[in-house]
């Protein structure tokens, strides 16, 4: 078995063990921290699919994170106010059901990712970074100036949404939901990466000219990857909103896009578990360093610099060394 596979298993077990230990010690706050790490990990896995595999440096993934969040916020706020979301041409009621909210979040973020991707992918390199950033900022300022759903103040949802048969307000049960979704997402992404689609996408990242010469259109691969990537990040946005029972335009801000990218850089770009390791490390640092100083980001910056300068492949490569990617 590969060293990386063993490490991946350890990471998953560790992520599961911490909240269970916290449950024993009666430390619900730590369970919440672990849940946050898991949700961020899903967002990172989503971005990593486009960034690591397809080489698409998107600085606009906050858009999909935010759309997922507002899918939850809008549906749940209508449900708690007993008002329909729209009345014409047909009446759509709000809902408290997590599975429905997830599906809506995935559908809308995928749709937006498809449209944004279709336009942005006509460019590449720095232009692609800037245009995705611009789309993200566009949605950010749109949300700020849309008074119906709280504008700058965002939306407060009083009760966490429900999942059939579970008490979602119990931290460990909500953690269980998020953890299961993370495993599901990891499974899907690993299958995709090993498929012919994944091989062609990685090939296009490394050599576009060659991919064309064998009769495959890179643009189409990129667009599919970007859409799937956006959908996964959208799902994590819905979960994040449910964790906080609050959504605000901050979810759309470019800092959010940057943070998601930081998870990937810390853990290891293009590695299946890179963003998982990165998100866990990020939460850990935020908690430990945040206790020392309000300006903990300065330490994070130093660590990030160290990783970029001395450990290009992130933490995972530091531990397992360089191996041939996914085989």
């Amino acid at each position: 078995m590969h060293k990386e596979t063993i490490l991946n298993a350890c990471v998953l077990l560790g992520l599961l063990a911490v909240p269970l230990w916290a449950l024993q010690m009666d430390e619900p706050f730590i369970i919440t921290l672990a849940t946050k790490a898991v949700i961020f990990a899903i967002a990172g896995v989503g971005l990593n699919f486009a960034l690591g595999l397809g080489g698409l440096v998107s600085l606009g993934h906050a858009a999909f994170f935010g759309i997922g969040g507002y899918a939850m916020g809008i549906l749940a706020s209508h449900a708690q106010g007993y008002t329909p979301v729209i009345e014409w041409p047909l009446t759509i009621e709000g809902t408290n059901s997590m599975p429905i909210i997830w599906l809506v979040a995935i559908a809308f973020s995928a749709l937006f990712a498809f449209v944004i991707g279709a336009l942005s992918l006509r460019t590449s390199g720095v232009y692609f970074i800037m245009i995705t950033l611009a789309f993200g900022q566009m949605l950010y300022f749109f949300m700020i100036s849309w008074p119906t759903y709280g504008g700058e103040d965002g939306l407060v949802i009083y009760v966490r949404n429900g999942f059939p048969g579970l008490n979602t307000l119990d931290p460990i049960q909500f953690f269980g939901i998020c953890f299961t979704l993370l495993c599901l997402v990891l499974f899907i992404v690993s299958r995709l990466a090993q498929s012919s689609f994944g091989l062609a996408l990685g090939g296009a990242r490394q050599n576009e000219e060659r991919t064309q010469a064998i009769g495959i259109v890179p643009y189409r691969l990129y667009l599919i990857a970007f859409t799937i990537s956006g959908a996964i990040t959208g799902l994590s946005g819905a979960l994040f909103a449910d964790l906080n029972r609050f959504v605000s335009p901050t979810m759309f801000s470019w800092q959010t896009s940057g943070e998601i990218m930081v998870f990937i850089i810390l853990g290891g770009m293009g590695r299946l578990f890179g963003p998982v390791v990165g998100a866990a490390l990020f939460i850990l640092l935020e908690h430990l360093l945040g206790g020392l100083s309000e300006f903990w980001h300065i330490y994070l910056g130093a660590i990030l610099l160290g990783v970029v300068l001395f450990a290009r492949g992130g933490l995972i490569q530091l531990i397992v060394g360089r191996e041939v990617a996914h085989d």
Partner: protein
Amino acid sequence: MTDPILDVRNISKSFGALKASDNVSLTLLPGEIHALIGPNGAGKSTLIKQVSGGLKIDAGEVWFDGADVTGLSTVARARLGLGRTFQISSLAMDYTVLQNLVLGALGHQGGIGLAAYFRPVMKDPALLAVANGALSQVGLEEFSNTRTSELSHGQRRQLEVAMALTLSPKVFLMDEPMAGLGTEGSHRLTGFLDELRHKAPILLVEHDMDAVFALADRISVLVYGKIVATGTADEIRNDPVVRTAYLGEEDAT
């Protein structure tokens, strides 16, 4: 006479004032190797790019397998069966040799169906058969699991040819396949291309004159974007225009 499989008709291409292709016509017949030679900057690679679809043509037409492909993209032409190799190895460097070849086989298979999104591609028997077939034809079997970036220059050239093989093309467009190979490497590849012409004809751009004169059924000489002569190896050797313009007296003996 047999119909040409590739028919380039009066194509012209300019970059500003520079005429890279000046009313160029050439044909490729089934089973032949047609070599394109000429001094540096004569427009050989530009011509290959126009045939493969990487560069737009200013005027003229490219006919392939009885159809006008002038307006088609690189991808569409590749699917029709134009197999191109690159002057500078153009491979997925992070992939293993086998992964590169499976990628090539994937292109030949006609792209990616929806069902293929969840099947591990490196276990697909049909694709592996094509990839391994190409691998053994160029003699790279033992490097199957080597990362491409770790191959030597010569091995990359071999892989470059193998990539074209996985496409089972109707025509090979080879842009300096011998570039940077040692004497022994060129010699081996020459023997290999000699066999390959029976599978599909080759339009060959090459600087290695020994290889060109040993292989080519016909040779066209390109100087400043114009074809100054076309003929058999002997005819080209003895053509006075070619001797002065390109080969130089001492090389032409």
